[in-house]
């Protein structure tokens, strides 16, 4: 164990950990929303994320930004970010809609057992990932430098960069917006109602299928933006990265309490931090081991996750 490495640059590990965690959290929202409403783990959500990440790169390419270009000027950077986010969100939401229509709704209509959903979820996930793999010839696809990673300020010896601020800022903003949407809007009330009791909600005049679709679309939008932020942060995208990232995001959702929106945020940030600290203490090869041991231990003491409860019952 090497405490020196960790404490000599504690601020640096904290800020990068939070940045990774913010992306986990955005993807985790998709798992948690769908689980809250349908009691279904949407394992194809990792490919919803990948679709957005690819769409952003291809969208930028269509605007003339290839992997070696560097965007400059505040106005054009904001424009690229906005366009990238819109394209990514649209692609991810579209993918999520297709998955719901093709892989889940037909099963729901036939009252299929939960195992069948699990298999179609995994099937959809593999099929989509492989399609991207074949299309990109399984090669990494480079993203342009949309935001230059300049240092903005230094806090406790840690340099905070534009990219980190962008990711943390936009993730938090989207979380707050989603939280307000679920708790204050009419559709949000519908989502909470369906999450509590589907049949009763239907009797009260709520269109169940529409609410479910909305849930998938919201999860898709979040994952799409996460995909674009991932591109900006990592700079290169391979078709296969969704699997592990999806697993981590799912872990984050469980860690925070699956079905609970604020739990997804806390779980994501915590997982990012634990991973990064573990990398510093024992080396990067240990980070997954430590992260999942932490998960198991935490669930032993709090089986429903940190914040517990699900979407419907949560006072959140």
């Amino acid at each position, binding site marked *: 164990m090497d405490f020196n490495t960790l404490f000599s640059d504690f601020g640096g590990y904290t800020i990068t950990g939070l940045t990774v965690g913010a992306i986990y959290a955005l993807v985790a929202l998709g798992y948690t929303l769908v689980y809250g409403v349908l009691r279904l783990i949407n394992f194809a959500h990792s490919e919803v994320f990948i679709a957005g990440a690819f769409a952003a790169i291809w969208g930028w390419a269509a605007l003339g930004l290839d992997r*070696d270009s560097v965007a400059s000027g505040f106005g054009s950077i904001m424009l690229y970010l906005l366009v990238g986010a819109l394209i990514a969100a649209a692609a991810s939401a579209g993918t999520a809609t297709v998955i719901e229509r093709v892989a889940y709704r037909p099963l729901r209509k036939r009252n299929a057992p939960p195992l069948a959903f699990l298999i179609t979820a995994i099937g959809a996930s593999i099929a989509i990932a492989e399609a991207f793999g074949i299309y990109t010839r399984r090669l990494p696809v480079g993203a342009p430098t949309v935001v230059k*990673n300049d240092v903005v300020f230094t806090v406790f010896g840690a340099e905070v960069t534009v990219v980190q601020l962008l990711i943390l800022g936009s993730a938090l903003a989207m979380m707050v917006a989603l939280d307000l949407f679920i708790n204050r809007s009419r559709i949000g009330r519908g989502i909470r109602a369906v999450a509590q009791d589907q049949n009763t909600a239907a009797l009260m005049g709520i269109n169940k299928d529409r609410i479910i679709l909305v849930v998938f679309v919201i999860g898709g939008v979040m994952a799409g933006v996460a995909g674009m932020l991932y591109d900006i942060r990592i700079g290169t995208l391979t078709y296969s990265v969704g699997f*592990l990232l999806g697993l981590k995001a799912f872990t984050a959702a469980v860690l925070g309490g699956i079905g609970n929106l604020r739990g997804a945020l806390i779980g994501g940030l915590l997982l990012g931090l634990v991973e990064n600290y573990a990398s510093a203490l024992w080396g990067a*090869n240990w980070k997954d081991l430590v992260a999942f041991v932490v998960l198991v231990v935490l669930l032993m003491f709090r089986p429903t996750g940190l914040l517990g409860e699900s979407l419907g019952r949560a006072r959140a």
Partner: protein
Amino acid sequence: MRQKLVRLVGGVAIAALALGGAAACKSDSASNEAGGDGCGSKIAFFGALTGPNAALGINMNNGVKLALDQYNKENADCQVTLVPLDSQGNPEQAPGLAQQAIDDAQILGVVGPAFSGESEAANPLFSEAGLVHVTPSATRPSLADQGWKTFVRTVGNDLSQGPAAANYIKNVLKAEKVFVVDDQSAYGAGLADEVKKVLGAAVVGSDKVQGDGKQSDFSATVTQVKSSGATAIYYGGYYAEAGLIRKQLTAAGVTATLVAGDGVNDPSYITGAGAAAAEGDVLTCPCMPASETGGTFAEDFKALHGSEPGTYSDTAYDAANILLQGIKAGNTDRAKLLEFARGYTGQGVAANYKFTENGDLAPEAVRVWAYVVKDGKIVPDQEIPKS
């Protein structure tokens, strides 16, 4: 009672199938050995043709294709065909593919396995079956010490490449602080260990990451490199992760030179990292630049494939030629071809070949070159002197 009967019938059926299968196999191999003149025999290429590290495998396969193309033009009445075995560089797939090659009695020799990890999984099977395999690229030193009777290597191992890289870091880059990272693969960790041994106290830190596309975020490693103040980074692994690490290092403001081995020596490294980030990085290889290889290899390669030969195209071409020369000389069963390949001496395009009794390339035949990334291209820099 009825169940018992069903079981009995089923058991008999399975036994019959197995026997029938065995008989079929037997007759198969018998008829092939009767052939004997080498016409219609096959050689296999074993390596990644798809997957995250496919670029190197494709380089090699193209070298083998060129050798075969030339052979078949000269011997139009007695051709040898190529069987590509796509391992995706994955050790888990290797034993199955090795068995596939062994079961095809027409296959007299194998070029590959390309990577060290898959070699460790596949080579015991080859050794048991007596099928010769000439690897143009698996550089982990210990591969030669496993007692595999069928192992031949047309490339210098990491005992030559690792120290050469370390010497380059010390003498040419003159770096006093070096950070060493590896991907925990048989190849990457082996290479990194050799580098650490030679650099000694100059190594200010080290880390291990995950290869095979399992990791894409290297922020913790980047933070460590940054706070270590290293002016050179050695990476033991393959180009996919190396490109990502370089890109993320540069994004975090680390300008230290990245030095890596032959697994990174591919244009895909620059594609992954971005040309500006990769500029000035040093890649070693126990293979010669195309301009240094003898004869018309580079031109012939370009004429057939429309591209320059890549890393290991030359050693793979030589490996295939050793097998083909053996077949041509009448060594048309596996045992004879094995004996021929292991005893081979002669000039190829990449080296003047001579093998040790383990099948490893003799130390005096090994030459390690340093290449640098310049204007988005990998260009030869210099041959690294031994020690």
